[in-house]
């Protein structure tokens, strides 16, 4: 009776995962979808605690420990998630993903000695080994991704023949994994070697990838963790884990590919592409850019925008870092009051994650219909008087269209150079995240407004008020 009830709960949970994920694909239903998933998860967890039959009497201490662990995890997870700033969201997703991976790896680690002792079948052993490898890779990879986005780890490290080393290492990892399945008896301690190797591979896999590509990597690692969860599901013949895991595995893979498509780069290029190296040679050719940089003062910018008919704002990561989303809304209000049409041009990969800018600007109550996606806004630049680029760089770099040697060549960009005037707000002349020069800054129509986004925009707002 108890175990049948549990099976029904798992069935319900699986259905909530599917419906929840489906609803999350639409802006209107997304929030409820997330809640439905959470309810299903709670059911599955509570059901497992009270109805799972482990084959022996479970002591009260165990229950206390389980609830203790859940309480600790809930408090830490909840507090971190509630307190984090909107700009730090991508890192946090990566971190939580890593936790899931570590959880899957630990399950493998605990089950292995037991399985080796009882001579578990090939299938079960395969699940344990795969779960351990994938979970560990996902864990250490996510931690590296977290550190990269966080800025702790800045440079993409790429040795010569890096791909070769990585691939050989991956083969060795799988060969060692296969050894556990084939060999008659393996010393129990060897599982720790496998664990270390997997952790190391996660680091090797993620570390050469540039920070700008981290969202794609996180999405990929996300689907890895899904697979790791699924292997656990096969091990315990647990339907909720199976469906949840595979669902995230396949959905995550597709999402990864969709993100790559938004950047117009194949996935293999993200993972194996020597982005860092070509960027260096790219900046070498940067000296060939002709023209000079032109400064613009706050008051000139204000006048220019005040008498414009139409202003398009291009937000980038700089806006997020400076927390300038509220000031920019104020600027929008002021300009609109004076009859200026204001729109925001959202590049699919502006910021550090797709949708990052939408989330950020929605926080400061910018109307949804003012955020225009790239394909829709590009034809409008020609009829625009002033484009204000705030902390964006690579997404407005014409080299993506004109320079085949550029590492971002082929990425669709916002055609801001078609506008009458372009004002670029940047902290300095440093290159953007991709580490390459931007000839837009040397365009005769472009004026540079140097300074922190929040600071510069606040001054701009003050100036506009006096006009």
């Amino acid at each position, binding site marked *: 009776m108890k175990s049948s009830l549990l099976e029904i709960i798992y069935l319900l949970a699986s259905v909530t*995962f*599917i419906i*929840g*994920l489906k609803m*999350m*694909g639409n*802006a209107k239903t*997304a*929030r409820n979808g*997330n809640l439905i998933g959470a309810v299903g*998860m709670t059911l599955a*967890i509570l059901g*497992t605690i009270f109805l*799972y039959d*482990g*084959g022996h009497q479970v002591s009260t201490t*165990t229950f206390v*420990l*389980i609830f*203790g*662990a859940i309480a600790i*995890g809930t408090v*830490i*997870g*909840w507090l*971190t998630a509630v307190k*984090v700033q909107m700009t730090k969201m991508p890192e*946090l*997703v990566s971190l*939580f*993903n890593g936790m*899931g991976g570590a*959880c*899957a790896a*630990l*399950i493998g680690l*605990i089950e292995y000695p037991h399985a080796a002792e009882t001579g578990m079948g090939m299938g079960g052993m395969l699940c344990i080994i795969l779960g351990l490898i994938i979970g560990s890779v996902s864990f250490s990879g996510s931690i590296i991704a977290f550190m990269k986005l966080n800025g702790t780890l800045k440079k993409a490290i790429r040795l010569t023949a890096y791909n070769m080393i990585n691939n050989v290492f991956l083969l060795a990892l799988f060969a060692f994994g296969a050894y556990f399945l084939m060999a008659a008896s393996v010393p129990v301690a060897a599982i720790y070697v496998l664990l270390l190797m997997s952790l190391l591979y996660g680091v090797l896999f993620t570390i050469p990838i540039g920070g700008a590509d981290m969202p794609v990597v*996180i*999405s990929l690692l996300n689907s890895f963790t*899904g697979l790791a*969860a699924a292997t656990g599901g096969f091990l*315990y013949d*647990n339907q909720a*884990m*199976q469906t949840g*895991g*595979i669902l*995230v*595995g*396949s959905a*995550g893979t597709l999402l990864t590919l*969709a*993100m790559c498509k*938004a950047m117009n780069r194949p996935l293999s290029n993200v993972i194996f592409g020597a982005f860092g190296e070509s960027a260096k040679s790219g900046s070498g050719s940067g000296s060939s850019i002709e023209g000079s940089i032109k400064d613009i003062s706050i008051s000139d910018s204000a006048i220019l925008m005040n008498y414009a008919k139409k202003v398009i704002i291009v937000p980038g990561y700089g806006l997020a870092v400076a927390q300038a989303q509220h000031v920019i809304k104020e600027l929008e209000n002021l300009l609109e009051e004076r009859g200026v049409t204001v729109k925001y041009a959202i590049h699919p990969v502006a910021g550090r994650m*797709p949708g990052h800018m*939408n*989330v950020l600007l*929605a926080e400061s109550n910018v109307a949804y219909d003012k*955020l225009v*996606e790239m394909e829709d806004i590009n034809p409008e630049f020609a009829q625009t008087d002033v484009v204000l680029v705030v902390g964006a760089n690579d997404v407005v770099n014409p080299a993506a269209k004109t320079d085949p040697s550029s590492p971002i060549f082929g990425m669709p960009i916002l055609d801001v150079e078609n506008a009458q005037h372009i004002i670029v707000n940047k902290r300095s002349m440093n290159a953007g995240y991709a580490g390459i020069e931007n000839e837009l800054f040397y365009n005769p129509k472009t004026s540079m407004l140097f300074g922190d986004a929040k600071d510069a925009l606040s001054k701009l707002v003050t100036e506009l008020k006096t006009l």
Partner: protein
Amino acid sequence: MEQIITAIAEHRQLLYIIILSIFVGVEVIGNVPTVLHTPLMSGANAIHGVVIVGAIIVMLKTESSLGMVLGFLAVILGTLNVVGGFVVTDRMLEMFKKKK
């Protein structure tokens, strides 16, 4: 050869689940606007937190103290994934809702 065929036949239900889940996953994500990619990734992230169920099973089953310690750790990590994942996603989506 015969072994492989029997193995497939024996595990056919499992194979059904795998194949159908893959299709459902692909179907569910298809045609999602770019804007929702981040929250969706975060939501999917929370859902694979279902791995916590495995960690709980470990704690219910294990008889060794090492298993208990590692299981305890695994449940904490799994809970972080689940709770953090859902709360972060909710916060992101809350932003979307305010607009209208």
